[in-house]
């Protein structure tokens, strides 16, 4: 624990001590107990560990914690507000876009980024947006349908 970093985590300013070699994923999961961010491959290929860094989706397993000093991070734990599911979370559940749930946090954050920037994405834009996130359960169809229905709102 040899470096202190300050970050805005899910809207809250936090000062934490991290090691030089710790990834953001490790700090979130192991030190802060935010296990909603999932470790699927730990090599930047599956998207399960996606968080929003300054509003942009990144693989937290590829980023050293010391590098996020002074930045804002949103994890899945920060998406629902005041105990209410975010519309993306609600629609993912209603439309059957969740099965085992392991890719779900990453998928929801990628969707949030997509819809924040582009509230009316096309079918192709939706497929492109989630193309870095692997889901083995759904064949992506109900995830895409869920995002489409959000886009139509």
């Amino acid at each position, binding site marked *: 624990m040899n470096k202190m970093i300050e970050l805005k985590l899910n809207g809250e300013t936090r000062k934490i001590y991290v090691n030089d070699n710790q990834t953001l994923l490790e700090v979130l*999961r*192991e030190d802060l107990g*935010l*296990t*909603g*961010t*999932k*470790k*699927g*491959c*730990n*090599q930047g*290929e*599956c998207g*399960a560990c996606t968080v929003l860094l300054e509003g942009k989706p990144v693989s937290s397993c590829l980023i050293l914690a010391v590098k996020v000093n002074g930045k804002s991070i949103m*994890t*899945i*734990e920060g*998406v*629902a507000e005041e105990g209410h*599911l975010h519309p993306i*979370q*609600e629609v*993912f*559940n*209603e*439309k*059957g876009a*969740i*099965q*085992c*749930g*392991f*890719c*779900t*946090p990453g998928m*929801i954050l990628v969707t949030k980024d997509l819809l924040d920037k582009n509230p009316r994405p096309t079918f192709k834009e*939706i*497929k*492109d947006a*989630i*193309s*870095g*996130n*692997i*889901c*083995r*359960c*759904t*064949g*992506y*169809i*109900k*995830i*895409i349908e869920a995002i489409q229905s959000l886009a139509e709102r």
Partner: protein
Amino acid sequence: MSDYKFIGKDIPRVDGPVKATGKAIYTVDIKLPGMLYGKILRSPYPHARILNIDTSEAEKLPGVQAVITGEDLREVRYAFVDTPRYPADEQPLAVNKVRYIGDEVAVVAADNEAIAEKALTLIKVDYEILPAVFTAEEAMEADAPVIHDEQLEGTSAWEDWGVAQKKQSHESEVKISNLSGHTAVSFGNVEQGFLESDYIREDRFELKATAHCQMEPHAAVASYDPVTQKLHVWLSTMGIFLKRYFLSKTLNLPASKIRVHHTYVGGAFGGKIDLFPYEFCAAYLSIKLGRPVKIELDREEVFMTTRQRHPIIVKIKSGVKKDGTILAQDIKVIADNGAYRGSGPVVIFLCHGFSFPIYNVPNYRYEGFSIYTNNGIRGPQRGHGAPQIRFSIDSHLDLIARDIGLDLVEMMFKNVRHKGDILPNGDRLNSCGLTEGLQGAAKAIDWKNKRRQFKTETENSRYKRGAGISLCSMFSGAMYYPFASAAIVKLHDDGSATLFTGAQDIGQGSYTTLSQVLAEELGIDMEDIHVVAGDTDLCPIDLGSFLSATALVTGNAVKLAAADAKRQLLECAAEILGVDNIEDLETCSKKIFLKKEPQKSIHFSQAIQASVFKRDGNPIIGRGSYKGYPETDRYPSLAKGKGLFTGAYGFAVQAAEVEVDTLTGKVNLLKAVTYHDCGYPLNKNIVEGQVHGCVSMGAGQALSEEVFLEKGQLFNPSFLTYKLPISLDTPESVEGLVATIEPSGPFGAKEVGEGSVAGILGAIGNAVHDAIGVRIKGLPITPEKVLRALGKI
């Protein structure tokens, strides 16, 4: 049927919110006070004798708490198949020999993962490298290196459960090197059938190993309490009672001293049912050290050392009449099960089990061989044998139809089985939607027009389009430990209920569908139900979420438990309402009312109170149970294919439209059609989700997925190099439900989670042939194979 309030309705998953908010706890998320971390030293060689292991330097490293090797566990044996004929051949850590690259050699438990990894580098192992063999056909040759030369005692894992098969000669009548399993089944007279045939054709198909790719890596946390002598484990698994049984046997602990705790499971697909060395070693180390131990595999280890789908060679010879009626079929299957038996004898049995329910073949001979090689271990994977055999048979049938100028769909209509058929082993098809499925799928893909249209439209184009079709089937549970599922429904003061089930939601939605069954039967609402699941201390036995058993077997148990609770409620209510016969009462939304005078009603809570006061404090607890197959006490013979297999077969008819780029060889799946006969769908949204997942996995295996092995070394143990479908590969998908009613299923339901992974392979293979006019007999159909088939490279 339409009167159902919950059954068949698209009710959102009950575990959706907890998963959507990141609050669902998976095994990899578990962290206990004082927890140690285990790391595994693995063999770098495919086949070698262990001469010496020196752990002294590793043990000296500060932070290392224990190092164990095979010497500590010489007597421990277990396996997915453990019968007198096929004795358990796996050990948690290698004793004397390693048999594949990745075989477990030693485990270190340390204060953190970094120390454990460092310690692994300090363990010195001296090996004598042995000759190795990497294909099943080479391993079968007389002079092939012998992979298992140890003498194994043949006992049945389930003998003490009263289900031992009759003692028989363990010697296999077949003398083939490295044989791990043999299945031989025949009925009718095959030679006579061929003699009477107008046309005979033989083909050989080959399918490669594929990976499950569950998003959650395999992990185990074990915590032993030396005071109570109780072992607590958290496992990412499909079957908590089977795991407990394995652990109880291998650790020599009473079953009641092991508690498997609930966690969510980040995907399984068949690959989390075997007992794994990391699970045993976490438990063993926790007992040894009296501290919690966690072992989590990294992604490369998951690819290399958990399980893969069996690479299989299928040789088929069929004889048909001019009109397409199949008269005789002779099938040979060779499965490479890798370095240990895994599910080898099961997959060769299931290749038969998933083949013979489809077509009525009067003269049939089937022979399957599972073979040891020095590759990674193969085990169950979604469909378990169905993809391999269904791809092969329906590719072969398409070739015959083309040869004799028949339409494949017409030929399928002529040969498919129907409701009421009795299979040669005695299984009866009480529901079978193959004919309706064929009609639906052929229509959805516009079978006749599309096939002609593609030819003319794309004649001069670089892009060729084609359509194909294939059929598949799957069990709905079978007789396997613990041979039944049970359920408990506990009613609360306010009339709501807790469902206790040993079933595990691995993503397939069982907590939701089982809740629907309970809500419908008992007459309460979905929000009145709380599910307690996946805990061996709290929940009654369950077959587990494999063999596609949950909907039918556990579903029936839940329905019976709900009916039991309801009966108790109605008996109390009858007294209060002054009704003689409980048949005159009905329930809905926690109310009990007279069928004829619905305004006369009482709330569940009143009946529950009455039960407590008037029936010796009985708070109303309903219980129900259902056997894996009520008509038998035996598991089927893997070697002879005798005995009853399953109470209900799920079926699917699948069609595909593809576009082949003849310049690059790339095949694009444009449209995937599935008509699944899952009986009556408990939840259409969930059924569609299962079909989508199956189609995606099947399409991946048809077109891009392959575990690349070169002399036993895995070359693509990552998501970057193992090409599973991503969102950009998603085809247009059409699902039709053939809503049959399975009389033995809860509300008519049966299997849906596995079957439709299988038909899409043959559908794609046949569509590619349709597009380019050339048959590719090996999967996956990679661009290279397409270009070779076209003579371009």
